[in-house]
């Protein structure tokens, strides 16, 4: 029989996904992407963070991180 499980997007634990989208349910359907509501919350936070429009502060912090990496490489 076909194994109808998917790995959880957060912890990797296999789970049986629910085919109903969030639009049909009317709320974020964690069962589509994760094994538990806790993992679902973490995943949703990651998605929201990844899709946030880049603010001046975000860009500045990215530049700082990148420049730190460059400095590390140069010192090596």
């Amino acid at each position, binding site marked *: 029989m076909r194994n109808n499980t998917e790995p959880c*997007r957060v912890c990797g634990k296999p789970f049986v996904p629910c085919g109903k*989208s*969030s*639009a049909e349910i009317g709320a974020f359907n964690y069962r*589509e*992407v994760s094994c538990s509501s806790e993992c679902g919350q973490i995943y949703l936070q*990651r*998605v929201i*963070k*990844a899709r946030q429009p880049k603010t001046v502060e975000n860009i500045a912090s990215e530049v700082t991180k990148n420049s730190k990496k460059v400095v590390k490489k140069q010192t090596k």
Partner: protein
Amino acid sequence: MVKVNDLSIKSFETIMTFGVNGGSFRFELDEMQNVTLGNTEEKTNQTGRNGRTIGTLKKNKAVTVSGTSGMVSLGLMEAQVGSTAESKETTVKYPDYVTVVSETTGEGDDASTTVYALSSYMAVGTAGNEIGTIHVKDSSGIVTKTLKQDATASAAGKFAYDPASKKITFYAGDVNEGDNLTFYYKRKIIADAVITNYSDNFSETLEVYVDFIAEDKCKNEYHGQIFMPYADFSGNFDLALGGDQTTHAFEATSIASACGNKRSKFWDITIFGANVEDVA
């Protein structure tokens, strides 16, 4: 006195339907290929000595109207599935075939190239799983790799999607410029009509008028109208798509009208002159 005798039917015009007991207009079929009014009655012989027929017993009188429309009628479909068509916001599944493109930012030593793809429409669904899976195909159309959607394209085999920009980003090295991608997603649209065949809704009973044109032996033209007060539509119908012309067949059983203090009837057939005047 009856003023008209034998008629030849010249053309079959339309079928109009309304809610029962003088309800509102429901639908009209004006591209009918054929219609049949089937009348049946069971007659059993009553026998006497030596099995001779001494009488008949008549029972089980029934009427059906059936026909085929040359076009698919949404109104007829509503009656057959017992549902109402709605114009509403809904989602449809869309198959998308796109090619990976590349973008170079910066100049000289600072130049960096990123590869990405754009979905044709905005995918909707559970946040972070709008597309779900992308199949990467080679030039022969063979799937070489399957990528899974994640919040970010942070590891091999993962991709990220931003519905606002429709941009799909990949982990470095997963795809190359020019790779063909196939994926399936739901897009949100305003549908012109949505009919849902609910499992617990059944076909409807409607008031039916069948109009036709007839001619007598002297070439006088008449209009004819068959009226069924209660036509119980059957929920059995096929929609054969592709190949030959898709037609829409139906069948309805006339229910004897026992409503009111009159003789019950299956139908009336009314013949009237083409240019008959109104009666004041």
